[in-house]
């Protein structure tokens, strides 16, 4: 479970990465994945857009649009955030470290 983020993100059948902008990533604490974290997607102005709960392997995923996004995670291990610049459609990945 260590090393580079999983590149083989599972996406719903029919997801067209030529058209859709997918933001995905993993919540980690000290390198270990954090499941059950509350992951909030904030737009370029810091406004709340959506919230999901990370999977047991710490993974999360949003369908968004091109732009600058902040992914903020809240968990019992602490909070943290990361900024993602999605210049266009496709899969955009990040890791969010909480402490």
């Amino acid at each position: 479970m260590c090393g580079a983020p999983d590149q083989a993100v599972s996406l719903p059948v029919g997801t067209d990465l030529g058209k859709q902008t997918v933001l995905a990533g993993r919540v980690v604490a000290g390198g270990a994945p954090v499941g059950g974290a509350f992951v909030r997607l904030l737009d370029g102005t810091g406004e709340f857009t959506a919230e999901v709960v990370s999977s047991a392997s710490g993974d999360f995923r949003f369908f968004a649009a091109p732009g600058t996004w902040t992914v903020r995670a809240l968990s019992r291990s602490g909070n943290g955030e990361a900024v993602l610049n999605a210049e266009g459609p496709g899969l955009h990945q990040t890791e969010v470290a909480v402490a």
Partner: protein
Amino acid sequence: MSREDVLVSTDWAEKNLGAEGVVFVEVDEDTTAYDGGHIPGAVKFSWTTELTDPVRRDVLSKEDFEAVLSAKGISNDDLVVLYGGNNNWFAAYAYWEFKLYGHENVKLIDGGRKKWELDGRTLTTEVPERKATSYTAKDADLSIRAFRDEVVASIGVKNLVDVRSPDEYSGKIFAPAHLPQEVSQRRGHVKGAINVPWSKAANEDGTFRSDEELTALYGEAGLDGNKAVIAYCRIGERSSHTWFVLRELLGHKDVKNYDGSWVEYGSLVGVPIELGASA
């Protein structure tokens, strides 16, 4: 009406687990969340089958509401304490439906399941057994429920509050970014509606903002405190959250939830729709 009448803290909830006459009820958007762990002693309501009619698009009938509460072992004089995931969206919807059928003694856990989990409090997979009751509901209180004709008639007359995200309001998208797009025929918002996303009423841990912050929020958005209010969203659950804020926390007298919401309104022929961001 004050916060203590309609909200309990996670701390209060933990201290009152198992208390006589108190029933904890979990309602989630993800109807499997309860099965993976819930507050000890809490019973589960599935919003798709136990709060809405399985055939018609509607809340439960009075008789079905009575049957569900009786089967869950809830009595007329029990204090029902609701909580759920996703910042209490569906718990707020359940709260509204309990009030609709005249169950006065009902409260929300401030912050819901998220706050409980972030606090590091206990969850269990043990499902409680409760003895069936014989619950009697009152006739639906339509002073808190708006139907489509009233919404159309309220354009320019009452406050219409669209609580969806700015992109749903402006007509850019049909549904929130993390959900499949349940499609109405048209995008946009009810003519003249103001846009105050439900999320602005909550802190990031899911608790409600202070009365002062909430009053400022709706005031700045142009809500006229002397006029009645109808809140709507996509299917009526996020607007229950705002209905709760306006009526139960801020004490506005005449607030209705339009549970038909955009999925209904955006499919009606000939009704006034506007596109574009709020002014």
